[in-house]
């Protein structure tokens, strides 16, 4: 939905964003509920323009950033030697912004291959020192960009081939950066090599600005850096979008299927237009294959609309669509229904429609949805969606890749659900089986990931590092259990975590979270049964629950009361505390079959 202040940054021409940035910042800063964020920028050039633009894009994304900038060119010194100011600033993340101009020593023309490798290593080590120093002294995330190619290739095409070529050097160094980012969980790489290529190096560099102000890039370049950074930051804080909602006629195929019929819609390789729709469908499918859900929202007769996906040339098949709405209701109502069925907020949706009137009503009515102005030329849809950087993620897990399949199953469940009058009967029909056990080494990574990304069904929203979760295994006063749930539609994977610590015969629950995929399945009851079981084995008689309210976890306000805990007041930090005597507790779960693991002795 467009913000009430009427500012839509992404629809403004870049020249306006640049010229009016001071006023825009004033207006955007007045928005409510912005999330504070401390960012330090260590620059190899003058970074003010990038920071100004980054500030706007972050404000637009719901952050209130506070910046600390190193003096021009002091990126290494400020991180490695004189780091007091940086440490004192207490950054949430640090952006190390260097460009090819900051490479100190290229391999000399005529050097041997081993000398070349030595030179790459020396340059790489300088950056590694920065990352390591930050890790030791501060421990926050670091975003480091790789390098654009040099402004000119002295050796022409040979520049990419021989050991003294700068282009080859940049390629080798960038490769080292990629390997480092893959190996270091706290190092994120910004791919300026690609970003600059997309703009074109001749438009990226601005030599007058470099000599006059020590700014490397043109204004376009600075803005491309800033928008890409803002997308990374959104990814870090879980504000990445997850669903692509597609119109059908003239969006995923050419023509109107209800009028033209399935034989006449444009898809396939017969004409240039048909090829362009095919290419767009391929783009949508590649998004789905990396974990973005596809949904359909179309004004059509449902039966006819579905036929479009049975067209022999259709790349997208019905099985790729996690939620399908084709009817004559207003689109914003259908999108609300899609959100309910997928159990996801509309602020994680991107809506694509060739019809500007539909775009306007959806943008006006649906909270938080992104509606890129894709125009009506299918050849440009993908490029325009890509420019929004909606789906930027900072890492990938198997979960991400399998997510589309999971939600497909979920959507089937939702349809299935409507067939039952009695909810218990519905739950039984799901034939749910769970594995609920104390933490095991193979799941520690997934458990840590859940503690860091679960916001809604999360009683305390405490975030844990892998090391902290690991420590639970060996601490005899800690009790951590996980839950996995599968049903007739598929395996949901590891979806719930409860973690507590014992003080004499009392267990305080520091963390209780569950993925929203399995809401209202009685999984929390099965988790409580298991928790009590393990707690009693430790000689515990009382379990104390804690609830720390946040903007996002309102859904678990009554969690402990519903589970039969008594409210016993508030702690100093504002958390509500609940208590349950477990000596006479008897198991309550009736709908989920809990599997016994064969324990190794």
């Amino acid at each position, binding site marked *: 939905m467009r913000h009430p202040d009427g500012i839509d940054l992404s629809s403004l021409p870049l020249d306006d964003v*640049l*010229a009016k940035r001071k006023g825009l910042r004033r207006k955007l800063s007045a928005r409510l509920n912005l999330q504070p964020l401390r960012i330090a920028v260590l620059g190899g050039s003058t970074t003010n323009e990038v920071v100004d633009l980054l500030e706007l894009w972050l404000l637009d994304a719901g952050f209130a950033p506070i910046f600390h900038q190193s003096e021009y060119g002091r990126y290494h010194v400020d991180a490695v030697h004189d780091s007091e100011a940086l440490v004192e600033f207490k950054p949430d993340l640090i952006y190390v912004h260097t460009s090819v101009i900051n490479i100190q020593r290229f391999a000399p023309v005529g050097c041997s291959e081993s000398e070349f490798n030595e030179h790459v290593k020396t340059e790489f080590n300088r950056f590694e020192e920065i990352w390591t120093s930050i890790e030791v002294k501060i421990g926050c995330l670091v975003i480091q960009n790789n390098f654009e190619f040099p402004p000119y290739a002295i050796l022409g095409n040979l520049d990419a081939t021989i050991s003294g070529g700068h282009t080859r050097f940049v390629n080798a160094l960038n490769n080292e950066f990629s390997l480092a980012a893959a190996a270091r969980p706290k190092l994120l790489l910004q791919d300026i090599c690609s970003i600059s290529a997309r703009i074109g190096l001749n438009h990226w560099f601005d*030599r007058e600005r470099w000599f*006059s*102000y020590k700014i490397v890039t043109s204004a376009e370049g600075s803005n491309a850096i800033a928008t890409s950074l803002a997308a990374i930051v959104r990814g870090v804080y879980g504000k990445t979008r997850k669903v692509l909602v597609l119109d059908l006629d003239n969006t995923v195929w050419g023509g109107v299927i209800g009028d033209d019929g399935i034989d006449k819609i444009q898809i396939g390789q017969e004409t240039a237009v048909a090829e362009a729709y095919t290419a767009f469908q391929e783009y949508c499918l590649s998004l789905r294959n990396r974990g973005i859900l596809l949904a359909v929202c179309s004004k059509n007769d449902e039966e006819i609309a579905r036929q479009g996906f049975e067209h022999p040339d259709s790349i997208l098949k019905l099985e790729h669509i996690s939620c399908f709405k084709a009817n004559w209701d207003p689109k914003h109502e259908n999108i609300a229904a899609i959100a309910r069925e997928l159990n996801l907020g509309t602020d994680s949706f991107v809506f694509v429609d060739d019809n500007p009137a539909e775009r306007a009503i959806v943008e006006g009515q649906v909270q938080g949805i992104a509606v890129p102005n894709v125009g009506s030329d299918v050849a440009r849809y993908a490029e325009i969606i890509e420019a929004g950087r909606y789906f930027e993620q900072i890492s990938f897990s198997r979960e991400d890749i399998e997510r589309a399949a999971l939600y497909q199953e979920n959507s089937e469940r939702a349809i299935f659900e409507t067939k039952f009058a009695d909810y218990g009967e519905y739950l039984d029909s799901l034939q749910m089986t769970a594995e609920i056990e104390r933490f095991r080494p193979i799941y520690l990574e997934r458990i840590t990931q859940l503690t860091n990304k679960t916001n809604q069904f999360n009683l305390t929203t405490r975030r844990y590092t892998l090391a902290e979760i690991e420590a639970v295994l060996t601490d005899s006063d800690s009790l951590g259990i996980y839950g996995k749930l599968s049903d007739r539609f598929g395996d949901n994977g590891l979806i719930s975590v409860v973690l507590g610590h014992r003080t004499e015969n009392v267990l305080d629950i520091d963390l209780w979270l569950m993925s929203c995929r399995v809401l209202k399945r009685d999984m929390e009851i099965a988790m409580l049964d298991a928790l009590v079981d393990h707690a009693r084995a430790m000689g515990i008689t009382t379990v104390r629950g804690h609830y720390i309210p946040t903007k996002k976890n309102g859904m678990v306000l009554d969690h402990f009361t519903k589970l039969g805990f008594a409210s016993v007041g508030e702690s100093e930090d504002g958390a509500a505390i609940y208590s349950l005597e477990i000596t006479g507790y008897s198991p309550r779960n009736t709908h989920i079959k809990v599997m016994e693991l064969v324990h190794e002795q």
Partner: protein
Amino acid sequence: MSSEELLLGLQEIFRDVLDQEDLVLTPQSNAENVPDWDSLAHVNLVTAIEKKYKVKFALGELQDLKNVGDMIELLQSKLAAK
């Protein structure tokens, strides 16, 4: 383009960049008598002027300018040469 038109055009840029909607620019305006016209704002002003009039200032062209009047003269000569 006349000096008056250019002065008005520049005034609009200065108002946007400096976020001062009542700013009145004269040919005598310079970094001393216009509030907040510091070195950072200067870069933003130059960029905005280049974009608006689709010109590019060569290295050194700007360093001898004393005030907005000089900028108008430079702009006129660059626009005439286009």
